[in-house]
């Protein structure tokens, strides 16, 4: 069965077809959730919520975008909602995207540590969690999920130019964070000092 056929079958209520889709995408969706929220437990909840939202929405899914794109969108939105709830629970009522701090996000040890045993990878992963929500989102989609500019534009529902410039700014911001923490030995350009 092709993915399209699986999607159609699942939309008609075929749980086995949906199970195959879940298995196909579980790592990607879980990764996206994990990289967005930084907590293994919460990533599980977010990823599950995204798949359930997909199951509920499938009967009306029109396929204008691909299933994967749609699933990434559901996950990305669920993760952002999670971050906002976290933010709110911490008592800060500001929901401004760019203002959204992530300092209280649990970045403690989790089952993923094994995958991040190299030092560079773990400092970059930690730096990722300090990015703004929007920057982290676009970098995760591009670098970890491997989405093209066009796919990211679909997921985020923004235009291509915005995707390109946001990715570039996100990279710049991430480097700045890592430099400030002393995690990169690079030369700090004057405009970042």
């Amino acid at each position, binding site marked *: 069965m092709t993915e399209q056929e699986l999607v159609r079958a699942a939309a008609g209520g075929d749980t086995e077809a949906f199970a195959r889709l879940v298995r196909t995408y579980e790592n990607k969706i879980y990764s996206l959730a994990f990289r967005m929220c930084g907590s293994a437990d919460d990533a599980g909840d977010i990823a599950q919520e995204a798949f359930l939202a997909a199951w509920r929405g499938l009967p*009306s899914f029109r396929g204008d975008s691909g299933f994967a794109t749609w699933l990434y969108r559901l996950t990305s939105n669920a993760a952002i909602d999670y971050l906002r709830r976290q933010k709110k629970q911490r008592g800060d009522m500001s929901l401004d995207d760019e203002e959204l701090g992530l300092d209280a996000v649990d970045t403690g040890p989790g089952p993923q540590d094994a995958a991040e045993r190299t030092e560079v*990878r773990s400092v*970059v992963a930690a730096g990722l969690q300090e990015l703004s929500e929007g920057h982290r989102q676009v970098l995760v989609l591009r670098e970890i999920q491997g989405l093209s500019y066009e796919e990211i534009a679909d997921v985020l529902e923004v235009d291509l130019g915005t995707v390109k410039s946001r990715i570039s700014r996100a990279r710049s911001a991430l480097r700045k964070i890592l430099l400030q923490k002393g995690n990169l030995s690079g030369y700090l350009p004057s405009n970042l000092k």
Partner: protein
Amino acid sequence: MRTCEEYEALISAFIDGALADEDRAELMAHMAECPACQAYFDDQIAIHDALADMEVKAPEGFADRVMAQVRQESRQAPVSEKQEKKTVPFPLWRRYAAMAACCAIVAIAGFWAFNGGQLGTGNVAADTALMDSRSAPVVENQENDAAESSTPADAAVADAVGDAPLSDEQPVQEAPADAPVPETDDRAAEGQDAGEPETFSVTTADSETDRVDSAENRGDSSPEQYAAKDSFVSTAYATAGTVTLTTDSALAEAWVAENLGQTWEAGASYALTVEQFDQVQALLEANGESFLLAMPMEEEAPVSDSLDDDTEETEEALESSEEPIEPADDIPAEEEEEAPVFYVLQAAP
């Protein structure tokens, strides 16, 4: 000559394999002379390498847990409690727009009562009010329980897939005069002018919310969806007549087949108990399905066993809304004491 910041954008495009040859040549030439950009490039390559291999595996048993939940939901077509709590299928502004529509109609009905409004013009005015309110007010303060517990994933479902069925041309649902609901026929026979189209209003019970901000009017051109909370039946203006939920959702079709043993036919109506009605509505809401919720404002309430908690206030509101339509000598007030409600599920024509 580009600035270093502009070269950073080129470096980003280079990493993504999206840099044109001539730009790449220019970038390389620049980096040969600019240690800052060369360092930026080196760092970005290192970051890119670190990020590229960061996909993590879902925990053991994750897919099984998801599927257990999915199977549970698909077994019990009626949504689980968890779903009801977590799902807000429609943008909240639509709910409030619907509520505002109802308020507008109630206000107009009251106005007629005071002005001895005449049968005939009322329907037009009510229709107009409804149409206006559909595209106007939005409640700014969306903090309620539903909003608290909603997930954007659900909202995304509604946004991404929920904008289909009911067309703009039918924002106001007319009950078919010959709907296969016996009580409806009785009501039409005794209380209504058979040839007079019934006016239906969209109603909702978010009565605690009264702040409307037209600045947030999105003028959304997508087909309208109205939703109401379960408690809407307890509001004053929802206690008379028939509450009709119109949809073309396959879920409703399946529900009718499973719970009523009836075949789903476009235009057909299915009489429900209040519990069944709530069940269907919750099911549709939880799945982000489109539906139109409507009730008549100016008809004699048919007999039903569904509600018995009407307050005096309710009856007053009912009477005042009926006066302009029904001459006072037609209907003794006693007949309206119970003012019950019929619940009808209609397959979109």
